[in-house]
């Protein structure tokens, strides 16, 4: 009996995580579902998990999913809820966390409870892997298929095991003082609930780190489209993963178009361009799989209603009073191209207007779209002296402020811990560790600060009349928009704590800084909710999954009271071959069903997509209002 059990255990293959990564909109979800279905055929027990905060797994499986595992057609499927996971994690470790905070700071239990209730920026990345592991071990799954968020945030997610280990170190430093005191006074030290949290975190970090680097236990598939921009992003991502010692097992080139019968003004050049990209992919990477484009089932659709209108769509999506114009939407729908085009068109119409075109997506593609070398330093575009552009580099901004933060945190800890000689060595260790750990959510924090600094600076006049933002894909764009409110909550909590201990510690330099930040965030929130000044444009494609995600994006944005000026449907088919006609009929049906009540702007498909200032300007002039 025992032997039989052992034999079965030996036969059971070890659990393997299969990650699908890639730029937004390349078909990660569809590939994940296809792979998971295939695995169930070979008697694997499969769990499929989506870690993108803007989930589309439910749409692909045609079932409503939640953070609870649900059985769908022989698969277990779940959409990860990072906020819920963090709340549960904190509840489970409440005693330990309180012990650490009580030992490591002068805060009382009320303050600590207040701090633990605040939501964290970057929670999706911080909790993603921890929650993934919890779900994976809830049943004896042999394969766990992971549908990840678009590139930038997936890279952050994969770096999280180190962050967990660092957090464990910081907690450990906070406990060190208490251990030292207990040993000096009582002679022996017995581990408490705080130490239990520390060792659990350290273990979790170590195991996740090892798992990701073990090809038996984790495999990475990279999905990309046969286009120049995704190829550049793939090269960057592969290099970043290589640095982390994570290897990609294969590359999936999705939606490769078949050559048209006869000539088509759209398909023929596209097929040629794709062949060139495929040649490069095969040259750069080994193990490449090609998946042909699946055409929609033929549908009958009435001819599109064309309405001649003298107005350019920009007058609808970015009226005269608009100071903040944001392009948001699912990954890969063409936010960057649309944002860059709109910025160039606006700059051409308003020569003196100081416009800042800003990318807040950690996987920037603005440089590639404009065909210019951009960085975190603002630079003017050739021929447009008043149009400046910049790709926010959160990590670099954080590094630049490191010294200042060390001082501020040192000061905070000095004051909260009383600053006696005994404390000093431990405090310093805690402060340094805190700064060495690049906290999660940096991209959203510096993204929002960069926008608000340009429009509602703390001192002096605004540096830009208008800011145009190319945001990260939906899930993280929403996190960015939540940021001012969250920042204000944090600042208020810290202000309340400083006030409470003011008689003991004084207010220090932190108080004016915090007040300044609160004032800036409040002004920015006002601007963000003012329909005169803020215009969000939801960029989408005329297809089912993007339409469903756009509906959810519009709902979320409405809840946050952020004004939407229109929906931009990108890459609308306009070729004349049989394939293009079939696609156009399907698209027409989708456009009709899309976002009722919102102004719609259609941007035609360009093959290959516009690149560089001249092409972007030309393409922007072909947009029309529906």
């Amino acid at each position, binding site marked *: 009996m025992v032997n039989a059990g052992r034999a079965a255990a030996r036969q059971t293959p070890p659990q393997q995580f299969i990650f699908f990564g890639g730029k937004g909109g390349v078909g990660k979800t569809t590939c994940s579902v296809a792979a998971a279905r295939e695995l169930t055929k070979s008697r694997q027990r499969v769990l499929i998990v989506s870690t993108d905060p803007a989930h589309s797994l439910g749409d692909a499986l045609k079932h409503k999913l939640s953070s609870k595992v649900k059985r769908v057609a022989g698969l277990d499927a779940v959409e990860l809820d990072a906020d819920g996971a963090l709340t549960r994690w904190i509840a489970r470790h409440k005693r330990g966390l309180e012990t650490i905070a009580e030992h490591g700071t002068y805060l009382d239990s009320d303050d600590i409870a207040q701090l633990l209730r605040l939501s964290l920026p970057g929670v999706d990345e911080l909790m993603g892997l921890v929650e993934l592991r919890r779900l994976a071990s809830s049943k004896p799954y042999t394969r766990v298929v992971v549908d990840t968020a678009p590139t930038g945030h997936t890279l952050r997610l994969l770096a999280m095991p180190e962050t967990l280990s660092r957090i464990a170190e910081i907690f450990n430093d906070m406990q060190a003082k208490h251990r030292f005191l207990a040993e000096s006074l009582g002679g022996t030290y017995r581990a408490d609930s705080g130490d239990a949290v520390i060792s659990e975190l350290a273990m979790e970090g170590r195991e996740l780190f090892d798992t990701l680097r073990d090809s038996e236990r984790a495999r990475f598939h990279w999905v990309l489209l046969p286009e120049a921009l995704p190829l550049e992003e793939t090269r960057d991502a592969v290099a970043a993963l290589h640095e982390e010692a994570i290897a990609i097992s294969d590359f999936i080139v999705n939606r490769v178009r078949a050559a048209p019968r006869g000539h088509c003004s759209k398909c023929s050049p596209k097929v040629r361009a794709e062949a060139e990209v495929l040649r490069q992919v095969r040259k750069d990477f080994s193990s490449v799989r090609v998946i042909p484009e699946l055409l929609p089932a033929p549908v009958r659709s009435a001819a599109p209603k064309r309405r001649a209108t003298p107005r350019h769509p920009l007058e609808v999506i970015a009226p005269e009073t608009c100071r903040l114009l944001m392009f948001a939407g699912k990954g890969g729908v063409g936010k960057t191209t649309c944002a860059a085009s709109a910025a160039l068109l606006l700059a051409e119409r308003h020569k003196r207007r100081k416009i800042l075109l800003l990318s807040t997506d950690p996987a920037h593609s603005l440089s590639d779209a404009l065909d210019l070398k951009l960085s975190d330093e603002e630079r003017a575009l050739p021929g447009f002296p008043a149009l400046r552009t910049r790709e926010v580099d959160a990590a670099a901004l954080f590094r630049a402020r490191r010294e200042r933060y060390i001082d501020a945190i040192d000061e905070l800890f000095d004051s909260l811990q009383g600053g006696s000689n005994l404390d000093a060595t431990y405090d310093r260790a805690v402060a340094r560790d805190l700064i060495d750990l690049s906290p999660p959510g940096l991209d959203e924090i510096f993204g929002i600060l960069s926008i608000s600094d340009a429009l509602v600076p703390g001192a002096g006049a605004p540096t830009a009349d208008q800011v145009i933002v190319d945001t990260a894909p939906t899930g993280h764009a929403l996190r960015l928009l939540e940021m001012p409110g969250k920042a204000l909550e944090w600042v*208020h909590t810290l*202000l*309340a704590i*400083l*006030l409470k201990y*003011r008689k003991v510690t*004084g*207010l220090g330099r932190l*108080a*004016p800084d915090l*007040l300044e930040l*609160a*004032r800036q965030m409040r002004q920015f929130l006002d601007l963000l909710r003012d329909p005169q000044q803020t215009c969000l444009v939801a960029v989408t494609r005329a297809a089912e999954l993007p339409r469903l995600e756009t509906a959810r994006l519009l709902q979320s944005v409405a809840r946050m009271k952020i004004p939407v000026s229109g929906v931009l449907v990108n890459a609308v088919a306009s070729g004349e071959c049989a394939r293009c006609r079939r696609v156009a009929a399907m698209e027409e049906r989708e456009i009709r069903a899309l976002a009722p009540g919102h102004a719609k702007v259609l941007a035609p498909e360009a093959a290959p997509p516009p690149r560089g200032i001249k092409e972007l300007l030309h393409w922007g002039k072909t947009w029309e209002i529906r």
Partner: protein
Amino acid sequence: MILIDSLIIGGIKFCFDKIATAVDKEMNDDTALREELMAAQMRLELGEITEQEFREVEDQVLAQLREIRERQMATQEDVEEGELRITGAEVTFEGDETGHARAEDIVEHAEDIVEHGERRPRRR
């Protein structure tokens, strides 16, 4: 015996010194006042006090800052007799609509007034 004497005398001296420092701080140190103003501003931000209550604190702190300055100038005059004496200063600031921006300006400018007495001096 000598030891006890010196302890008692030393102790008393220590106490008097402490009291003198505390009184001096209360009467002549503007750091505490500036903190008071900053704290009021923080309470306003947290919604613990109203705009009106904040204005009252602000006026009070400004008046006290002026007093400190007067006292300091008086001391200075005792030393340098015959010099021009400035006993008051009036400052106006343009604040934003919410009025939040003002307090910090006031703190900054008040510092100048206290230290140099050179902002729009007016003879009383």
